[in-house]
């Protein structure tokens, strides 16, 4: 197959992997060829080597070494891998790299640089939300995205937006923390 590397040059390998060149033609390929390997994460530009099909999650974790974003299921089921793309929560395990080229990606490592994200973290600390903590990067991302969309969500909106799984059962603490941020009265 033909793979494309960071510099946009191509080299052939002997594998029988799917050749997406054909497909890519039907997409906005010109754009991809120029930008495919340029990613903006936490306001830093990265040149990445992975091909466009690779889930963003693994580019972030393995290639860029940002391991705050977690792998839980790889199937859009748990939300542990949530990042923000242009401020909107996105499950990176089901986000092909090529689909986010040109987007502004924020990972948990930079969450405190975001004004709302910082408040979310403080609320998480106040409410002592995390237990094992493994889902919490994703939870913080989801909460930040929620508050960006709606600064004063009601309970139902919180429930509709917060769908990430937590095996440790921190759900009540999570909603309490968000309710707090929404300026609503805390519930015991």
């Amino acid at each position, binding site marked *: 197959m033909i793979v494309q590397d960071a510099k946009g040059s191509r080299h052939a390998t002997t594998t*029988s*992997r*799917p*050749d*997406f060149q*054909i*497909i*890519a*033609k*039907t*997409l906005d390929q010109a754009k991809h060829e120029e930008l495919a390997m340029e990613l903006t994460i936490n306001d830093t530009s990265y040149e990445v080597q992975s091909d466009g*099909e*690779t*889930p963003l999650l693994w580019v972030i974790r393995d290639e860029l070494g940002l391991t705050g974003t977690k792998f839980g299921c790889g*199937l*859009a*089921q748990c939300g542990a891998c949530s990042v923000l793309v242009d401020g*909107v929560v*996105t*499950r990176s395990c*089901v*986000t*092909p790299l090529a*689909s986010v080229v040109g987007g502004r990606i924020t990972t948990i490592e930079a969450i405190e640089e975001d004004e709302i994200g910082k408040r979310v973290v403080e609320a998480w600390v106040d409410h002592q939300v995390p237990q094992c903590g493994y889902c919490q990067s994703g939870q913080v991302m989801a909460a930040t995205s*929620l508050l960006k*969309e*709606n600064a004063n*969500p*009601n309970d*139902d*909106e919180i429930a*509709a*937006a917060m*769908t990430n799984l937590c095996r440790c059962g921190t759900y009540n603490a999570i909603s309490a923390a968000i309710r707090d941020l929404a300026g609503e009265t805390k519930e015991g």
Partner: protein
Amino acid sequence: MKKALAILLVVLVIAAAIVAWFVTRLPSSPFDGQPRAEISNDLVARGEYVARLADCVACHSTPDSAPFAGGLEMATPLGSIFTTNITPDPQTGIGNYTLADFDRAVRQGVTPDGARLYPAMPYPSYVKLSDEDVRALYAFFMKGVEPVRMANRANTIEWPLNTRWPLAFWNVAFVESGRYEPESDKDDLWNRGAYLVQAAGHCGSCHTPRGPVMQEKALDETNGNYLSGALLDGWYAPSLRNDHNTGLGRWSEDEVVQFLKKGRNAHGVVFGSMTDAFNNSTQFMNDDDLAAIAHYLKSLPGDRERDGTPWQYDAASNEKLALSNRTDNPGARIFMAKCGACHAADGRGKTPWIPPLAGTTSSLAPQNASSVNVTLNGSGRVVTDGVPDSYRMPPFREQLSDKEIAAVLTFVRTSWGNTGGPVTSQEVRDLRERTDPASSNPIVLQMR
């Protein structure tokens, strides 16, 4: 009077005898009387390719059995049929078949002992196979496939419905007798495509609507029903005609080729039963044949009346997904919780890896079986060039109730310009009961 009765009796006896002869007779084959010929490796290789075109393996193998040893259960409302061992084992397989016997089975659905095959075996299509392809196929099954001793499993259809001789009449009524004849006013590419689609590819088995006795309503392009979309086994196989909404109207020939070769393109990804056809058959077709198929399919006119107003993306639906709006719209809410992460919040998917829901045939076709089925059960792994897909569709049957699936699919099928229309809980329940979730294991059926 007595005499009249006697004559009638004689007539009846003669008629019965004719029927008996007719339904058990061995139809003739052009290969009758031909001596067994040497089989060359080339011919075996050609036969293997024909077997790929005809997707023999999809039915005559299971993930657990040796290639072509049969045993796949095909559930019918009347009971189960099990596919047969077609390895060259003389006792349990087809090792004793002559080329003529093989021909009769493949093209006419008749076994050497005169028994009729259920048309689950797509002989109404295979009848169009050329003599050369049949000869090659025979070569492959005799020399390219390992003999496996595995007795066929008895079908579970009960008497009298298991009586198969009436199929002889069904065949007379619905199976055209001839080989594929090239249309002289069409070019070679078109004719090759027509041959592949109608004969080995047997695309009509799934994509052509069936009549009251399960016959395909059309067997070639001369009838507008041909490949116009059909419901089968809980899936809706969409139109392969130039229908803008429910067919290939918006696809280029290149995109048809991509779909059949890679399992995906900008419009969609194979799913449901097409996954098997792709995994085992279409991706193995050579580029010329795929181009021919695409060319032929794109020559089939659409039917505006059946298809409706051409779809256009309607961004207004995205409003319904906004947080404050979706709290009292269960469909929108479930969409964002379960579907949006992959298919994108605007329904456009992440093509070509994750298909759009906006404007896809399954969201536009009034028949909603595929929407319901794939949501309940997910889809099997798409294995392209030996490599399983990066992103699979998970089953939601354990997570969403009938009502919730109905709600989310109603949202999907009425948003972004989609005109498929609502889904009811009852429809979900019906399919839930008679389907199973797809395996997350990549299933690769071997032919050797």
